[in-house]
């Protein structure tokens, strides 16, 4: 799928369905039409009254003026409610849909996107997409319907005047939009990435502030923020000139329409094809029409920002999942209940999406209840193996789970059997309870506390706010060791039949590492659980049944 098609897909996602969108346009057109009708009716009323007819002749116009005045406010209010509701509903769908698209990529296909950039794309850019229905299509369609309606109305009074109005409107439409597009096309496209650059510079500064202070590099980092900001300012100022120019041109076209109305209507009046009140209407109607159309340049501007945000969102969620990542086949089967947990690897190969960390061909059989240690140095492919076992990474060769080929089974099913304790576990910005309970949603507080005791966190939790302890953004309020223990606790709660521990004690104090491993392996073997422990370091020999060593992605004979 091409970049453009992907952007279009994102834009389609941002656009509410017709049944929610069309009512807003209709109500909006009625409101704008009422504004035009109010001025037309007022002009006719005044000019006709100046001819001093009987009051009967103007009474209908009096009613009309009042009715249109009320209708304008009421329709406008309704329009705003309807359109905002539709846009916000769509935001919900958009967020969920984007998350669902990220799911097949997570976690190993997401590394290419930097944190600050991801932040911008998923807050600023996704929010910006709401403007597609709200500030692009809605005003454009309302203005279009109103303009056409007004031209048709004038046609019945004076076709020439109607053509003149249509001409001025066309000039305003075309010049306003084209001019806007030409002047600000380049600036708009650079604004979103420059905003991203400012965001990235801010994240660099704020998240590494300690190191920057310690190295006396704060000023340099501040300068980087300032430079990114200056670049953003240049782009924004360029865009400003474009937006202003097109509003100015629309205003000029509006004035020209009034002038043209006078120039066309005055001879018609003298030749008797028009009367005085009709002349007043022809001259004044353009004023109201152009007031409605004045929002067009802003709509065009918004459309450019929306498009550029859509492009950035589209590129953050590639639709093609890299071949290295596991994807369910359409005919993938669920894992058979009570499946045997024997894992057998035959000639298995796997690697990261960037081509690194390649392993294999590997031959390895892990029997139920076995406690296996996989040792290896940095870059030996230990984490590749761990992610392959839980089907985050796809593989070549064969990997069977309880006798069934893993790639023919649904990933989610395999992951109810085989669990992973990640090397860098993600700690959610929530309480300790929330960080545990998603692993087993039925767990009671007592069970959670018990599992905390098994990973040696009971005292720590008790000295804080217990299960209500807030762990902070990205676990900022827990140490590396505590984060690992929380991850261990989650894995125990989920009660996997096979548990892969990727360096579980990398950040646990040496004096407790053995103790935690002992606790863990004891708990695991009492349930007959298989434990695959991946570590670069030594592990007390009595804790494991078997050790294999990984060297450059292979197990040497």
């Amino acid at each position, binding site marked *: 799928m091409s970049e453009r098609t992907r952007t279009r897909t994102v834009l389609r996602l941002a656009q509410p369905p017709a049944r929610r969108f069309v009512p807003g346009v209709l109500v909006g057109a009625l409101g704008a039409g009422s504004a035009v009708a109010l001025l037309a009716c007022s002009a006719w009323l*005044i000019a006709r009254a100046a001819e*001093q007819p009987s009051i009967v002749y103007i009474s209908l116009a009096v009613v009309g003026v009042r009715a249109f005045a009320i209708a304008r406010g009421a329709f406008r209010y309704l329009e705003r409610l309807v359109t905002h509701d539709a846009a916000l509903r769509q935001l919900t769908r958009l967020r969920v849909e984007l998350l669902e698209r990220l799911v097949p990529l997570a976690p190993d296909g997401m590394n290419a996107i930097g944190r600050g950039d991801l932040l911008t794309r998923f807050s600023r850019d996704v929010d910006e997409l709401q403007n597609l229905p709200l500030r692009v299509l809605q005003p454009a369609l309302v203005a279009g319907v109103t303009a056409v309606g007004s031209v048709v109305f004038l046609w019945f009074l004076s076709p020439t005047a109607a053509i003149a109005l249509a001409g001025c409107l066309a000039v305003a439409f075309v010049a306003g939009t084209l001019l806007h597009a030409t002047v600000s096309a380049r600036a708009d496209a650079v604004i979103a990435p420059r905003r991203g650059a400012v965001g990235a510079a801010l994240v660099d500064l704020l998240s590494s502030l300690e190191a920057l202070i310690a190295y006396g590099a704060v000023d340099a980092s501040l300068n980087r923020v300032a430079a990114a900001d200056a670049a953003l300012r240049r782009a924004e100022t360029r865009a400003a000139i474009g937006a202003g120019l097109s509003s100015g041109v629309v205003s000029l076209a509006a004035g020209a329409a009034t002038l043209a109305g006078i120039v066309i209507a005055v001879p018609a009046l003298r030749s008797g094809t028009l009367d005085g009140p009709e002349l007043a209407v022809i001259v*004044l109607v353009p004023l109201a029409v152009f007031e409605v159309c004045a929002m067009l340049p802003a709509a065009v501007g918004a459309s450019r920002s929306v498009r550029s945000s859509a492009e950035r969102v589209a590129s953050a969620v590639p639709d093609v999942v890299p071949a290295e990542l596991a994807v369910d086949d359409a005919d993938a089967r669920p894992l058979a209940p009570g499946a045997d947990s024997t894992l057998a690897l035959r000639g298995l190969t796997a690697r990261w999406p960037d081509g690194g960390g390649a392993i294999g061909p590997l031959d390895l059989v892990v029997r139920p209840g076995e406690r296996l240690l996989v040792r290896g140095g940095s870059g030996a492919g230990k984490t590749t193996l761990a992610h392959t076992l839980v089907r985050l990474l796809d593989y070549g060769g064969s990997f069977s789970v309880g006798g069934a080929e893993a790639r023919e089974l649904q990933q989610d099913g395999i992951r109810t059997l085989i669990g992973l304790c990640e090397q860098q576990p993600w700690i959610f910005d929530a309480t300790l309870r929330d960080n545990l309970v998603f692993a087993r949603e039925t767990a009671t507080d007592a069970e959670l506390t018990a599992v905390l005791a098994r990973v040696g966190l009971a005292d720590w939790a008790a000295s804080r706010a217990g299960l209500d302890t807030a762990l902070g953004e990205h676990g900022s309020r827990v140490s590396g060791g505590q984060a690992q223990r929380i991850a261990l606790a989650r894995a125990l709660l989920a009660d996997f039949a096979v548990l892969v521990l990727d360096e579980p004690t990398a950040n646990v104090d040496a004096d407790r590492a053995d103790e935690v491993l002992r606790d863990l392996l004891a708990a695991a073997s009492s349930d007959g659980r298989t434990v695959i422990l991946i570590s670069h370091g030594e592990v007390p020999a009595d804790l494991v049944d078997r050790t294999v060593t990984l060297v450059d992605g292979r197990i040497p004979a």
Partner: protein
Amino acid sequence: MKPLDPRLLRRAAGARLFLLGGGAIGFVQTLAIIVFAWCTAQSVSRAIDGATLDELAPLLAGLGAAVLVRGACIWATDAAAAAASSRVKGELRAQAVTAAVRLGPSWARGRGTAALATVLGAGLDALDAYFGKYVPQLILTVIATPLLVLVMLVQDPLSGVIVIITLPLIPVFMILIGWATQAAQKRSWSRLQLLSAAFLDVVGGLGTLKIFGRQHRQAARIGAVTDDYRRDTMKVLRISFLSGFVLELAASLSVAIVAVQIGLRLLDGAMPLSVGLFVLLLAPEAFLPVRGVGVQFHAAADGLAAANDVLGILDEADAAPATSEGAEPPSTSVAGSPGSSAAASAAAPTRARRPSPAHLEITGLSVAHDGARVLDGVTAGASAGAITVVVGPSGAGKSTLLNAIAGLDGATYHDGGMILLDGRPLDRADVAWSGQQPGLVSGTVAANVALGDPAPDEARVAATLARVGLNDVAPSAPLGVGGSGLSGGQAQRVAIARALYRLEGRGCRILLLDEPSSALDSASEQLVIGELRSAAASGAIVIVVSHRPALIAAADAVIGLEEVARV
């Protein structure tokens, strides 16, 4: 809601300038509107009275000129507003990042660095709509509306009076509805921020959720939460749009009333058509800016809320004690407790007694974090030439001790005690530090290693990288935001290389490393231990936090910390 935050005007020169410039443009624009309306009304009424196009030529020329001036003013206002917004954002952002630095790393972590980056980055963009759409209408309300009403009063007192009576209804309703929605608006804004943080948290933790089979449920939860937000927001909008409704209604109804009463008086022949048309054209123009202010209420609320977040940070920084750490290197990192100067002079004889080797003396150091005491009266020392390893269980305050020595976040959480190097207060220039997180930034690997060095020595950078076993990482390799692009072990070694580079280049006395080998295999760990050994041998005080047996085995001295709660 105040339409203009005085603090915004005080802090941002761009905002003040725009008020002046926008006022001048608004005045000219108003004159153009009056001329346009007058020429149009005269042309129509004279044409009805039988004038030919030739006779109307001067009026039409005036009309054309007014159109040109009006167009120019509209362009100038838009351009000036966008430029002003951009400038104000830059001014606020520059002040706020400086303030954030002054408030320190632990403050930033407490606020959440991602949320903070949003407030200072994307959040401020709400000012675009505020300056672009709201403030110009505000300026015109102050300049154009009174001027137009005055002209109407002179031309037709009755119409003028009608407008004068209707106009104040608008601000009254605006204020009433504004009061009703203010708290809700604020809540809605902070919920939006929480929501995007939660959304990002799920995006970041998607891998973990997937392992537990919770990815789809979590996506559904984000959907439910966003939908809750929509329902709440719609409740707010129903009321805040009501103010828009009242504005529109008041404006259009008063135009209708003016039109009808002018019509009735024309019917009696009580006023000329030209005056009637002139007033009819001016009436909506008088309401236009007021309506604009109302319609842009949302833009204003969002802009002011975003500005308020940033102004709050500036106020917080102003209120913070002047000793708070900042970009400027502090002369001392010792807590300003009353006893410290006495203690410092008492320590002076120590230096006289023991001139060399260099010695670091920590006495009675207490550190509180978030109100909880992390270190309580720690007394310890470390000498040059030796590797000192800090050990202790999780949460015993090992990292806190190291950061206190490095003078990081010192004044914000020092509780008492002192840290002296050879009897004198420690300077941050004495210290080469590396924390538990690598703390790398975007840029090349070399730029990270030579962080803070105004004249990086490329050869020494490459050599230092090689010494920690990073031969396979090119110094010119670019890193993403937060140092992304390296494995955990590589990032850790780049951070160690950075500390070694500083130690040697700046002649620092102290090397502080927090868990330098937690992500390393034993071969790499041995390389690092060798580097620590040679740093010590060259006369540095080496203090390392570690739980790794190999590192502890290499220690010449050990500082044992126990959890405060257990002491």
